[in-house]
């Protein structure tokens, strides 16, 4: 099948609005010149925030503190359930508390390098700059970060860097940061600045005269379709990694809100940049979708190995030292087990594909703590990873203190997302995307512990500044009525689509389609891609989409609590988004970060970037039903950093 990608240059619409001045002063200069809204006017302005992870809860509370009227939506029963809760490892910040030479500049460099030179310098520098405020704020909110005996904060080192800058609360840092953000959100709910709408799923964006003015949401208890309006809409709806079905993500995580925004005109950036996490617990049965992540902080003290002999079925403790292949230490002596995630994942897959994998399926490698326990004592290891070890034992029934863990890569994080400018605004005026929902800071790969950092930075410290620049022009706009024809039309199309889903009355459940889609994506658009496979995937997805709309079975009705309908509606969107992932992977004829095209590698099998032709952000535009997606490029200019071939050898 022929793939047509129209390329246009529309620089006017893709203005990233990067402030002038030297890199280190851009954010300072921006803050000094951004337009403000006076307190009396703020009370007349409504802002919708969709999602209550760290980014959404933080943005809601910070906007509430400023005095805006905030309406916050979550498809959970409580904001505290959002999937940021499951982030384990920590929050990076450039505090340099360890006196090991860290600085804002070095964190910036590490992120740019980790993202394999496919992120925007100004955004990344700002994230690094704001990281210190994030730690101050979380500490003040009562996050029980790890501490030293003198009472100061402790840090640990994390994959891909040479300094110790990761602040953590055992292996539950995300939970503690989310609960702190939830607490600050609750304080604003009590103060009346935020109205919380739980158990609501956003099913469309309402755009009036080119501006984002509201959403259509489904009440998940009654099935009622609701209209909500505002002067601006903020999407904090996370990533789309569950497109792979098997992933480390919460099973309800989905792409619907972002996809609806895309279809209403927001560009989608770098959709093929998906991170596969190297250390999850392997799949154990066919009904399992969720693969539990074992934090990569474990790679600080665990050594990864496979037997030197193919198909060695001996229990790991019976394999002597000289018959073990510590393949990461062997190939990457400088970084060893701490190489970035994409390298660790591909290396694991390479060993397993070559026949060295362990466990019943042969799709696993060992992560061994024997030597660290020997050196540091069991107590020290328990102090650092106690809860992770406990979780591993609960799930698998084996004890990682005495037997190595078995791990395998799984879909984990999406660097791609809605395209945003420096102000975190999408290409639809008044529509913002924050946290994992946007594409902005991680380039082609995300460094460990920079996710919590970015989502908190976006939500607490960046959006609440930049949104004023837009809202200052909105102070004379009265409350947006929900009876505009655009609301009528959006509600009508949402209802029509849901009715269509329940009326197919075919034979296969939504989950069946999800599994099949996931397998196509994992095999052909996962951690290793090639043109032949991607073209095949395009046609397989097309067939699957057609089958879905003919043979889907959704029991129950629209106006009821209907979990099968929720799933079906999300999977219908994944079946469309899948095309865009594949197209983007096809179009990017280079290997960079987590995107590995087999045609573009060195003789040693390392990723081969093509800076001359691909130093850009792919920003895709929806052209309408049945029309080819349109590619725009945002050229990336590296003024501060010299582009180097990434080497972790």
């Amino acid at each position: 099948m022929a793939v047509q990608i129209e390329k246009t240059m529309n620089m006017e619409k893709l203005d990233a609005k990067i402030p002038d001045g030297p890199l280190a002063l851009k954010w300072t200069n921006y803050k000094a010149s951004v337009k403000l809204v006076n307190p009396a006017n703020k009370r007349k302005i409504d802002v919708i925030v969709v999602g209550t992870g760290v980014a959404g809860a933080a943005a809601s509370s910070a906007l509430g503190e400023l005095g805006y009227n905030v309406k916050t939506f979550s498809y959970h029963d409580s904001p505290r359930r959002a999937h940021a809760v499951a982030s384990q490892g920590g929050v990076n910040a450039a505090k340099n508390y360890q006196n090991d030479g860290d600085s804002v500049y070095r964190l910036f460099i590490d992120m740019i390098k980790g993202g394999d030179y496919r992120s925007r310098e100004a955004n990344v520098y700002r994230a690094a700059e704001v990281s210190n405020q994030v730690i101050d704020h979380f500490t003040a909110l009562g996050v029980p970060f790890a501490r030293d005996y003198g009472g100061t904060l402790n840090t640990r080192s994390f994959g891909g860097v040479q300094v110790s800058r990761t602040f953590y609360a055992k292996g539950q840092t995300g939970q503690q940061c989310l609960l702190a953000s939830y607490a600050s959100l609750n304080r604003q709910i009590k103060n009346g600045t935020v109205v919380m709408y739980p158990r609501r799923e956003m099913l469309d964006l309402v755009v009036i005269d080119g501006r984002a003015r509201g959403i259509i949401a489904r009440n998940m208890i009654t099935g009622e379709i609701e209209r909500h309006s505002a002067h601006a809409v903020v999407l904090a709806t996370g990533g789309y990694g569950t497109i792979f079905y098997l992933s480390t993500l919460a099973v309800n995580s989905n792409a619907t809100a972002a996809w609806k925004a895309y279809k209403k005109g927001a560009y989608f950036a770098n959709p093929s940049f998906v991170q596969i996490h190297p250390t999850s617990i392997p799949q154990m049965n066919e009904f399992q979708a969720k693969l539990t992540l074992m934090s990569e902080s474990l790679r600080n003290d665990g050594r990864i190995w496979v037997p030197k002999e193919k198909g060695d079925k001996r229990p790991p403790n019976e394999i002597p030292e000289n018959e073990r292949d510590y393949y990461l230490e062997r190939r990457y002596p400088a970084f060893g087990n701490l190489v970035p995630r994409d390298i660790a994942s591909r290396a694991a897959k390479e060993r397993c594909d070559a026949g060295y994998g362990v466990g019943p399926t042969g799709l696993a490698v060992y992560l061994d703590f024997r030597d660290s326990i020997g050196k540091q004592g069991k107590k020290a290891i328990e102090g650092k990873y106690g809860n992770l070890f406990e979780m591993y034992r609960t799930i698998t029934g084996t004890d990682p203190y005495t037997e190595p863990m078995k791990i395998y890569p799984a879909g984990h994080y999406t660097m791609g997302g809605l395209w945003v400018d420096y102000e975190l605004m999408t290409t639809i005026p008044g529509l913002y995307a924050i946290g994992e929902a946007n594409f902005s800071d991680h380039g082609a790969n995300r460094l460990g512990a920079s996710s919590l950092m970015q989502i908190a930075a976006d939500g607490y410290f960046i959006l609440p500044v930049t949104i004023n620049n837009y809202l200052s022009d909105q102070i004379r706009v009265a409350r947006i009525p929900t009876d505009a024809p655009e609301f009528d039309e959006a509600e009508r199309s949402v209802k029509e689509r849901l009715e269509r889903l329940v009326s197919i009355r075919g034979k296969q459940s939504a989950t069946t389609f999800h599994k099949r889609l996931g397998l196509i994506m994992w095999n052909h658009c996962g951690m290793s891609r090639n043109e032949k496979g991607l073209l095949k995937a395009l046609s397989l997805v097309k067939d699957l989409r057609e089958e879905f709309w003919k043979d889907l079975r959704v029991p129950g009705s629209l106006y009821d609590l209907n979990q099968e309908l929720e799933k079906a509606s999300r999977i219908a969107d994944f079946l469309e988004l899948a095309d865009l992932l594949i197209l983007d992977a096809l179009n990017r004829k280079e290997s960079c970060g987590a995107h590995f095209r087999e045609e573009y590698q060195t003789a040693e099998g390392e990723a081969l970037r093509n800076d001359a032709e691909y130093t850009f952000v792919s920003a895709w535009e929806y052209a309408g039903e049945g029309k080819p997606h349109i590619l725009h490029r945002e050229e990336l200019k590296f003024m501060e950093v010299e582009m180097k071939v990434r080497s972790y050898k």
Partner: protein
Amino acid sequence: MNLTLKIWRQKDTKSKGKFVTYKMPDVSPEMSFLEMLDALNHKLIGSGDDPVAFEHDCREGICGSCGMYINGHPHGPVPAVTTCLLSMRHFSDGDTITVEPWRAKPFPVIKDLIVDRSAMDQIQIAGGFISVNTGAAPEANSILVPKKNSEEAFDSAVCIGCGACVAACKNASAMLFVSARISQYALLPQGKVEARERVRAMVAKMDELGFGNCSNTGACEAECPKQIRLVNIARLNREYYKAY
């Protein structure tokens, strides 16, 4: 293994519910309890029936969404795990397993195994926070916290808000849940400034919403999947006395 499931089915809050029996053959011991329910629902959808509604999300024991009574225990018979992490290897061929929603007055049933736990959010909204605006925080290391206090605060802060403690309690008391938050903040200098107002507001809201009193039975501690300890309740009581 082959199992018999007796599951509570209830159409909505107003309808009357009842137990329905399902035969569940070929359950793999490697499954989690929720994957076993996924397999049941797969069967039910295939035969044109309405699947069992239950709440779940992260499936790694941290989000607090899932929770059901399994053979008379919240989250099932194994201590310190949530329903999503409960492995079927703890059951035997031929077992009959009874599955019910949380039973507590402040948690009305919404559908099947899903209950409304928004009362727990209401208590947090009443005072479960430290009042610091974005941008107002001091430099993080200017607040020194003894390592021991910080670790104890962490042990309280790991509560996932699942509601098992309330469901386990014969009085439907939320004391363990509330005391976990109160303790976290009481142990940290950041939380001390508004300790009085916080404990008063949270306890008053808890009483107002119809949660029962604590009679020191300890069922909450025994059933808590995150092993939140009764000592938190003692600390809550101390904080409460100090506040009046």
